[in-house]
């Protein structure tokens, strides 16, 4: 497989995953604002505006102190904003450009779903449609892209690079959710139970894991269990442990051995650290700091992958 094509596939995977993750987090913020914005504006506002800590480097959105005003500004910036390098619009366009560069590797269905999702979003932006209406549509389209990929793409090297890109992006954001959104949800002082439940559900939904968590852990929303689930559960598709496993499989498919490949070695070490080195009882506050470290290690894995495969 061409090194350039591998890089395009990798970034296509990353940008698609980023688009999906952004849509999900915006939807969570919107639902939360409706659900508990009136009950506890301060906590809701902290949660809604905390989006920028999950996407460091994105354009700053001013927090006006008003829940719905701030939410509108967040939606406008993170969904439709061309000026925000980490918006859905920018990510989907970048995914489409990468897909266009490697459309000879993609099934017709995959390219068509990516292309039409971007064209529809661009038309919505052009016509000035309300972000509130656009969000569910885009979310559905991005979800559909995943379906088209899963059903039609060959599980070869090109698929491995999509996996590497999407899992790396996913793990990175989940780690930041545990590091920042979980503390935001708990606040500094006691919260009304309905508010806290809503916020903790928001944390899990930010990581697309609420239903899966309930099936595994039950209905009780305990912060330690939540962070452990998001980090360590090997069957939850949005957990870090699952992501590392998929990455290891992808690198195995590419023939990367731990002896020869720095990226494979780093991934293996991280996977082992999570599997065998995690304490039995989680202190979610301690885990936040560890998450930042792991997120940095994820960035290092990205750099190793780039050196190994893209800079041939």
């Amino acid at each position: 497989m061409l090194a350039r094509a591998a890089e395009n596939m990798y970034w296509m995977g990353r940008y698609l995953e980023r688009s999906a993750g952004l849509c999900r987090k915006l939807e969570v913020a919107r639902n939360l604002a409706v659900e508990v914005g009136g009950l506890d504006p301060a906590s809701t506002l902290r949660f809604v505006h905390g989006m920028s800590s999950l996407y460091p480097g994105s354009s700053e959105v001013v927090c006006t102190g008003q829940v719905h005003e701030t939410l509108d500004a967040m939606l406008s910036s993170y969904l439709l904003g061309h000026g925000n390098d980490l918006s859905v619009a920018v990510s989907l366009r970048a995914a489409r450009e990468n897909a266009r560069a490697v459309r000879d590797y993609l099934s017709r269905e995959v390219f068509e779903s990516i292309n039409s999702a971007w064209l529809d979003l661009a038309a919505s932006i052009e016509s000035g449609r309300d972000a509130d209406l656009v969000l569910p549509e885009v979310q559905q389209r991005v979800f559909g892209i995943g379906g088209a990929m899963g059903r039609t793409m060959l599980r070869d090297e090109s698929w491995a690079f999509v996996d590497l890109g999407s899992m790396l992006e996913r793990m990175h954001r989940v780690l930041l959710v545990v590091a920042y959104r979980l503390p935001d949800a708990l606040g500094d002082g006691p919260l009304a139970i309905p508010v806290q439940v809503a916020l903790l559900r928001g944390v899990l939904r930010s990581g697309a894991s609420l239903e899966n968590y309930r099936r595994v852990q039950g209905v009780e929303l305990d912060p330690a269990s939540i962070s452990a689930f998001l980090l360590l559960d090997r069957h939850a598709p949005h957990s870090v442990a699952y992501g590392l496993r998929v990455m290891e499989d992808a690198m195995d498919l590419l023939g990367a051995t731990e002896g020869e490949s720095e990226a494979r070695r780093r991934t293996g070490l991280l996977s082992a650290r999570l599997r065998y080195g995690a304490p039995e009882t989680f202190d979610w506050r301690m885990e936040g700091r560890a998450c930042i470290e792991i997120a940095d290690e994820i960035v290092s894995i990205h750099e190793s992958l780039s050196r190994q495969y893209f800079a041939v």
Partner: protein
Amino acid sequence: MANQWQVAQKGWDEGFVSAGTPRGPYRDVIEVLDAFDPAEIGRREQLQRISLVNQGITFTVYGEEEGVERVFPFDFVPRIITAGEWATLEAGLQQRVQAINLFLVDVYGEQRCLREGIVPWELVFSRPDFRRELVGVLPRLGVFTHVAGIDLLRDEHGEWLVLEDNCRCPSGVSYVLENRGLLTRVFPGLFRGHAVRPVDHYPQMLLETLRHVSPRGRERPVVAVLSPGANNSAWFEHSFLAREMGVPLVEGRDLIVEDDQVSMRTIAGRQRVDVLYRRIDDAFLDPVIFNSDSVLGVPGLVHAAIAGNITLANAPGAGVADDKAVYPFFPDIIRFFLDEEPLLPQVPTFSGRRPEDARFIVDNLADLVVKRCDGAGGYGMLVGPTSTTAEIAAFKEGFEAAPGDFIAQHLVEFSSHPTWTGSGFAPRHVDLRPFVLCSESIRVLPGGLTRVALKEGSYVVNSSQGGGSKDTWVLAGSGGDA
């Protein structure tokens, strides 16, 4: 007829003998389309447009906003060519492409046709697409032009004429295949009762052609498509052909030449390439030999080809055969190399290089279309019948200063074809670009790309200037005239 069908007032009408009387092969198609009211046709047309947009079947337009992607409009009324007509065309196209390759082998080899005055040597040597660096270099199997697109039109009597040859990187074949797919989805009923020859096998034919000219006698040589990149106007076609042939689509930066061997940069290291179907113009192909500013090409690529380690299709230097200045000599070229009369006539053309032609051109500027040999896209030309006296006088001055730089033709009223206008069917001018593949044998894809000038009265079929395309049917079976 339920819908309004206008008939061409001048020139050959492909669909009708006269108002209300369709030509034989068109009767069923018109009957099927007449069963739809304009609203239903509009709905289906919208469906096909959405399909083109969503699939990204586009070309990029330069000179406006950066990288504007446009859909190549598709008109659903198919152009129909009978089996009998096609047999004549096919033989003529094979003959012409054979002559093109023999001419190129000679020009870069023995130069007999130059020595014997079939084509003036000073004309050939002065053309920018003559690559003197390649004199003495004979490509594998003696094939310079592996893929040719020969532009044809029909004159007012319905006779097919060659308008021009495209021997370098002819584009448009992807639309031939996509148009067929689109028509079968949106207007499947049109095909009922017709045995239309398929076109889907073109990528397989192309791959076989390319494999035949591999420098290494391996069963499965490594073939790749070389493109200037995603910003190129024909990117869709490049990626389409790579995907359909199942070969890598590479850019210049993906390739490296070491010891005259060409390799791709892959995730597993370097992999040797045997054949490159290159869609980059000569000038940008190799900065070592041609344009030194080119960042699209591959340094050393042409030397690797000269060393016989890779085949470039089409071969560099092939462009001299489709030069406007050489075109007037083609009937003589065919006679010289094949000892046959041309099976396909071409538009009668006067060369400013011939003194008697130059005199005729000067005396008849008002009746002729005069083109600069190095002009393109309608620039540097005079359309005498539509020009003012002052324009003709100004052009005459330029012509007389360097008559050898010009050719001239009578204005050909080329044929029209029934085309949907949004409210009814009206005649619009069309041409045809069949695609011819050449390696061990010469094969022609049935049909080709019919381009249509969508604006009323326009003769401009180019996609960048309001042109569209049609599905071109070649009917299976024997005989018949349209």
